[in-house]
């Protein structure tokens, strides 16, 4: 080296103006302004007080838009009448719940006074059972395929994930355009000698369409979770199984499935929660019809509370509390599972 090095390095490198530092300038400016008052505040309030200060905005928003409506909803469910404002409504106690559960035969929903609620519950139940089962099976198969060395694997992953990014209303509209009488499906089938069919006016087809469309719309999300789970399984376990001459089905049953189980459980519960809440895509697609064939619980609540004349906000509130209880149970199960998985990870 021609020049002798200084004994110590210069304290700070010469400042360079990069695009990033330029973009951060307003941030630094604001931080500079906020610095002094925040320090003063911390001195006055202490560390715990600062935590409260920073959490307060979020807690405020949570209280106004989540907590308060829940409380108001509970209050509504205890009132009757057609008035909108709470102060004009009469207190009826648990009458709304009694009304819902007033059935002459508990095995026959049609014998109930509020049979529309029980029809919606029945529809939702079958929707949840069929949709979740098919959804999990489809997601698992898709994830297994996408986990292989495919050509253009990233492209296929994007293809399956893309519907998740669509707004539910868009999903509903797309499929209505495909399935309506002057829709794409009839247009394709027409040259093959099929007369145009009003697909969505058939009860079974409409229900199947509701299930199919919601699977199409949500599958990508669950596929992604399962794919992540599959990729976390070490490759050499499969190589060890290959050396042992394990048949593909046995590898799946004895290695893949047990090791994927934590992810699978999470996916099942998440899908259950989502399916119980089914509303938007299906409402846009079928409007609950034909008749009440695709009317689900959320739609019943919405129509009872906001559409029907006279509006029955009390009954709708009671129904939504009941639905909320089901969701709370499912959420607790989900939390329990994730906690168990976390503990397993620690071991």
């Amino acid at each position, binding site marked *: 080296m021609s020049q002798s090095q200084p004994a110590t390095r210069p304290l700070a490198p010469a400042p360079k103006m990069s695009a990033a530092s330029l973009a951060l300038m307003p941030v630094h400016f604001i931080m500079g302004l906020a610095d002094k008052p925040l320090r003063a505040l911390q001195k006055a309030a202490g560390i715990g007080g600062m935590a409260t200060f920073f959490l307060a905005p979020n807690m405020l928003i949570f209280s106004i838009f989540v907590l308060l409506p829940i409380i108001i909803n509970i209050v509504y469910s205890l009132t009757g009448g057609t008035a909108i404002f709470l102060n004009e409504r009469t207190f009826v106690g648990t009458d709304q719940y009694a009304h819902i559960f007033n059935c002459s035969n508990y095995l026959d929903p049609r014998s109930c006074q509020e049979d529309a609620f029980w029809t919606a519950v029945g529809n939702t139940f079958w929707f949840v059972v069929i949709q979740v089962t098919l959804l999990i099976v489809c997601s698992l198969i898709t994830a297994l395929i996408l986990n292989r060395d495919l050509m253009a694997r990233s492209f296929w992953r994007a293809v399956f994930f893309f519907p998740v990014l669509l707004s539910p209303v868009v999903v509903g509209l797309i499929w209505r355009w495909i399935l309506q009488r002057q829709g794409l499906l009839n247009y394709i089938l027409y040259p093959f000698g099929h007369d145009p069919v009003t697909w969505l006016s058939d009860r079974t087809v409409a229900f199947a369409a509701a299930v199919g469309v919601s699977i199409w719309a949500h599958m990508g999300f669950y596929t992604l979770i399962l794919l992540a789970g599959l990729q976390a399984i070490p490759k050499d376990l499969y190589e060890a199984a290959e*050396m042992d001459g394990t048949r593909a089905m046995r590898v799946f049953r004895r290695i893949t499935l*047990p090791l994927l189980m934590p992810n699978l459980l999470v996916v099942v519960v998440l899908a259950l929660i989502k399916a119980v809440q089914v509303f938007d895509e299906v409402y846009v697609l079928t409007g609950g019809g034909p008749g009440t064939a695709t009317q689900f619980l959320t739609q019943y609540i919405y129509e009872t509370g906001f559409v029907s004349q006279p509006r029955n906000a009390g009954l709708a509130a009671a129904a939504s509390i009941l639905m909320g209880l089901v969701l709370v149970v499912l959420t607790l199960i989900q939390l329990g599972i994730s906690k168990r998985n976390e503990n397993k990870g620690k071991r």
Partner: protein
Amino acid sequence: MGSITLTNVQKSYGAVHVLHDINLDIRAGEFVVFVGPSGCGKSTLLRVIAGLEKITGGELAIDGKRVNEVSAADRGLAMVFQSYALYPHMSVRQNLAFGLENSGMPKAEIAERIGEAARMLEIEQYMERRPGQLSGGQRQRVAIGRAIVRRPTAFLLDEPLSNLDAELRVSTRAEIAALHDRLKSTMIYVTHDQVEAMTLANRIVVMRAGKIEQVGAPLDLYNNPANRFVAGFIGAPHMNFIEGDVVESTGGTVVIKAANGEQFTAPVPLNGVTTGERLSVGIRPQHMGLSETGRGLPAKVRLVEALGSETVIHAEALGQKLLAIVPGQRHLSAGEAITLAYDGAPIHVFGANGQRVN
């Protein structure tokens, strides 16, 4: 049973050639170690033999039968993976049984084989535990056990000791050697640790960049390395190399001139070297000593490592770094002038192409 023959075996991933024309004859019952630096293709070669990778050229035969197209399961080999690859959700017993159940073996025979392997490896008390509840050394035994129960024609071990701590590595190494003596099966063992290679192998295969550099018994490689790479790789610490151009070669000595202009005389008869040719003269640190008579190579001490039983001297001579290991404890300090003796030391001379010339 258990001979493995590789003839012109090649493996490439697209345009990347990982293995070039590998020719190797592994005899039944032999313990062969593949050794080489990271990325030399030793693990790929093992996986090719295992059948986990398809070869792209040449022929692979087990017991004289061509197995190029035979699946990994039907080659009758068992592999011990670097990560052990134990099934985390199964107990030790289930891990051992899993492979045997595939072939529909009767339950009684499976139990008997597992019992035998468990006794041999002293893992009987852990049979109902899961891999997550075992220590590294215990997992390692289970992984070996899973190979043993299959009674394979040959064992393939891919860096099986690399996840163990230093002490456990030494004891497990001895156990693997004992296991080989007992089972008398062919074992192929991959490692980058030349001490493991030296202590375990009947024969060592030194690899570099997808090619075999030399095959031989451990001491053959140590005493007669075929090229500079093998000379530098086998033996710890590395062999000293003195680089220089030939000044003259007469009778029993060759004189070379180092880059700094100083000359070095090596007492080794060489034929067919021309003046000006570049040579590397290799002398192992263990074969260099401190001269009592003043005859030898003048050097300067750079660093002294006192290990108690021996002293490692980092010295500089001819403008190059040299290492000498001398027995006992020597009190030397950095900067001190010494004379390195190499009388009677085995001297290895390599040409410009790296091949041995003496």
